[in-house]
């Protein structure tokens, strides 16, 4: 497997709230422990975060309220100034970028979707979506054409002249999504985009989001407090607690080998069959798999299970090019399904 290029890298990123936090961090060589932070009267919102977000992946940061996940995503775009560490975006250290360089980067390479939509109440849907382009100084005809395209993309065609307050929550967030995509960002931040929506709408928006991603292949940082949502959408997940990342990995790794009891609390009720991929459960091929039914190594066990209904003892597991790379035994699937 080729290792994709890292688009966004956080190295030892800290955010401490309180007086003289920066001096404090320097005096502790950039690695103060919890007690020292408390003793200095500081609040560690984000502590010692190392992570890299790869080109084209959905990187989900999951944590409960107060875990620092919203602060972290704002450190990545420097909406909040980090107390220490480096944030590299395409190899450029954002923390060293000048004010005008930052404006340049945000205007053309970053997009963000907000939990409460952050639509400007005095602008129509069209003007809201065109707003980032207007700020860049694009002329009216060009920006409106682009905005209409985006509105079409998120399925809001016909609502161009409505005002935000006339739309439902789901529709408002579609506007937010269209707006953030209008500038064709290279990195797309979504800060709990669906948390303020009703469960049914949330589900629908998640599907919509996946549909967009298969089309657009953006590099995505997605914040959520909903573990199921994280499992559903993520290529990789980072779980945060008290400002620290307690575990990062694929949904599978996290469900199969939770690093701490805190993570295990989340994974306990997850149906493993929906998370674990056939690749992880397969055994070496024995040569007779060519004849029977086959399944992709990317599929999860829940998708593979129905293929055993006709009594086959095993399935052939294939890679992306259709070559058989292993076999999935009936017993292994049954025992996993029975575990829940």
């Amino acid at each position, binding site marked *: 497997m080729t290792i994709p290029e890292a688009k966004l890298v956080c190295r030892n990123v800290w955010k401490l*709230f309180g007086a003289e936090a920066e001096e404090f961090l320097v005096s502790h060589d950039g690695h103060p422990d919890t007690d020292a932070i408390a003793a200095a*009267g500081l*609040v560690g*919102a984000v502590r010692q975060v190392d992570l890299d977000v790869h080109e084209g992946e959905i990187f989900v940061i999951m944590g409960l*309220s*107060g*875990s*620092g*996940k*919203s*602060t972290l995503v*704002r450190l990545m*775009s420097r*909406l909040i100034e980090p107390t220490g560490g480096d944030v590299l975006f395409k190899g450029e250290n954002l923390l060293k970028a000048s004010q005008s360089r930052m*404006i*340049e*980067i*945000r*205007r*053309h390479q*970053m*997009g*963000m979707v*907000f*939990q*409460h*939509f*952050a639509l*400007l*109440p*005095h*602008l*129509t849907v069209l003007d809201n979506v065109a*707003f*980032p382009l*207007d*700020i*860049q100084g694009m002329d009216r005809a060009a920006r409106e054409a682009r905005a209409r395209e985006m509105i079409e993309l998120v399925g809001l065609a016909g609502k161009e*002249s409505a*005002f935000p307050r006339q739309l439902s929550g789901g529709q408002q967030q579609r506007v937010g999504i269209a707006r953030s995509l209008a*500038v064709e960002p290279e990195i797309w*931040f979504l*800060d*709990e985009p669906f*948390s303020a929506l009703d469960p049914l709408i949330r589900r629908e928006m998640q599907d919509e989001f996946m549909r967009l991603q298969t089309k657009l292949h953006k590099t995505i940082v997605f*914040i959520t*407090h909903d573990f199921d949502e994280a499992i559903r959408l993520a290529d990789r997940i980072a779980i945060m607690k008290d400002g620290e990342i307690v575990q990062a990995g694929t949904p599978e790794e996290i469900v199969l080998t939770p690093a701490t009891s805190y993570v295990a609390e989340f994974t306990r009720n997850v149906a493993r069959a929906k998370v674990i991929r056939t690749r992880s459960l397969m055994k070496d091929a024995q040569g007779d798999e060519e004849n029977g039914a086959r399944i992709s190594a990317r599929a999860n066990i829940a998708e593979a299970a129905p293929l055993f209904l006709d009594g086959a003892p095993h399935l052939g597991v294939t890679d992306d090019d259709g070559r058989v790379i292993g076999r999935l035994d009936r017993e292994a699937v049954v025992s996993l399904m029975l575990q829940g």
Partner: protein
Amino acid sequence: MAMSGAPLLEPETAQVSRRPSRLPVAWLVAIAVFVTFWLYGKPLFPAAFDYPKAYVIKLAKWISSAMKWLINEASFGLFSFTDLTRFISAVLDVPYTLAASLLSTGFLEGSGSSAIQLLPPLPWIAVIGLVMLLGHWLGGMRLSLLAGGCFLFLAVFGQWTSAMITLASILVAAPLGVVFGLLFGVAAWRWHWVERMVMPLLDLMQTIPVFAYLVPVLFLFGFGPTAAVIATLIFATPPMTRISILSLRAVPSEITDLGHMVGCTERQMTWRVMVPAARESLMVGMNQVIMLSLNMVIIASMIGAGGLGFDVLAALRRLDFGAGLEAGFAIVALAIAMDRLSQAAAEKLSAPSPDTQASGLVARHPYLVAALALLIATTALGYVIPGIRTYPEALQLSTGTFWSEVVAWININYFDTLEAIKNAMLINVLIPFKRFLGDLPWLGVTVFLGFAGYRLGGWRLGLLTLCLPLFIAATGQWEKAMITVYLCGISALFASLIGIPVGIIAATRDRLWSWVQLAIDTLQTLPSFVYLMPAVMLFRVGDFTAMIAVVAFAIAPAIRYTALGIRKVDPKLIEASRAMGCTEWQILTRVRLKLALPEILLGLNQTIMFALSMLVITALVGTRDLGQEVYIALTKADTGRGLVAGLSIAAIAIIADRLISAGASRARHRLGLE
């Protein structure tokens, strides 16, 4: 909830005192010491009772000479200070003259009685028509009729010319107040150091009585409508600044984040994101500025604003109640029209309007076209039919004599009763209280206030409440300040005694509350001057009259805060109490009033602030307090004297405000509401 922004933990808030209530020993000791000192200390420490004359700081004199220096000598190199004030006057005079010419005087050539009218002012019918069109555009037929009716009232009762002069001043002052207030607000929002400079200034300006503004303005800018506009601006800008800061701060942090994420420059951030996002609350500020401008333009008649305020003032001086009441009613009509119009404007302009697809000038701008047509038609017709240009005198009604007769009738028939009430109050309540306060040792009061501040809000507050009374004493105003405290205190007491029960009764009855609310809303839109007229009519001049006017003015916040506090109590709690078998009386006394206590305290605070601001105006009816001091300073254009007295009133206001706020916040902590 997602974590957004900085979680600023204050270490103190976590450990609110939860100790069981015990006897307030410290308070009892302090009171005992104070009383002992008051009763027996005089022979020992005479200086603690009468501030020694030799140590009086001559602040008033210093300020006055500083002002004289400003006027006569100060210079910025290229131009002198006087040039600057003249320049400001000249600049403001342009829009004022334009507005006044349009509405009232017509465009003149030359000056004085030899002036020739080049163009007549707008016909009265045109003005009423414009107001009605505006009302229709902003709020439909009802508003149109209300606003038109109010203006028609002005014409029918012969107040047109004065009212239009008043209106002209407001038309100049209010927009400028909104613009300046917004600019200051934006600056304070954007640069922290500006905010740190502006906020204390705003606090101070809010507590300095309006009269005190007039003195330096009179001194620097002279007597006349332009100076009045400047005074109005100075008065109306701070609240707009404050509202701007608050509404910009109330913009959700996500919106600010959005602005940054799309790469706004600072300027784009301010004008494309923040100000539009805060539009709704900024519009509320606009309404306030208009109403405050009206209030101030009326008061500024003392420095030559003319108009309705001058009519009231002149009538007060002549004790011509009929004329005074008529002008008073005209002010009320103008106030109601402006309040409702600007409220509707706030609502209309903060809601986005859908694009109109209509084409053609008439279809797209029907109101504009109608207004133009109206102007042209009435102006043209005005040359033919004079009754269109100016309201025909034959059709004017004057109620002046009627009101004078009513007053005469009341005085003939009820003079003894009214006099008896007044005297009984004076002899049994007012004078004893005044004597009591007058006897208190200044040093004892100062120390006691310092102690109270320390107990309620820590050493900072203690220091403040120690220094402010010291300032009053040291500038030689203790006696007058005590008279202010006495009048203010007794008025606030009566306002609370009436207002709080009314609030309690109205709070739980929805229909009654909506009526009471309408009444106090209307009362609050009335300029403070208006309150003097009826009080003087019935009781002539003196402390009692002043008290009646102050109580009438200050009762609104007492009612409002009490009712709001009670209505804010969680209905689940009421349900729970009912489920536990509380009687209605128990629910009121044990649940509602307890939980509404902090609100009621804030209401008391506001009542005191209102009382103080009104008290100064009652100097016109012959009180002898700091307000009178300011008034005298105004007539003599003695800036130092006026400012020092004004600052002393501000000091009293600040002491009361801070002590009560600290008390209210402690109460909130204790009740777990914070």
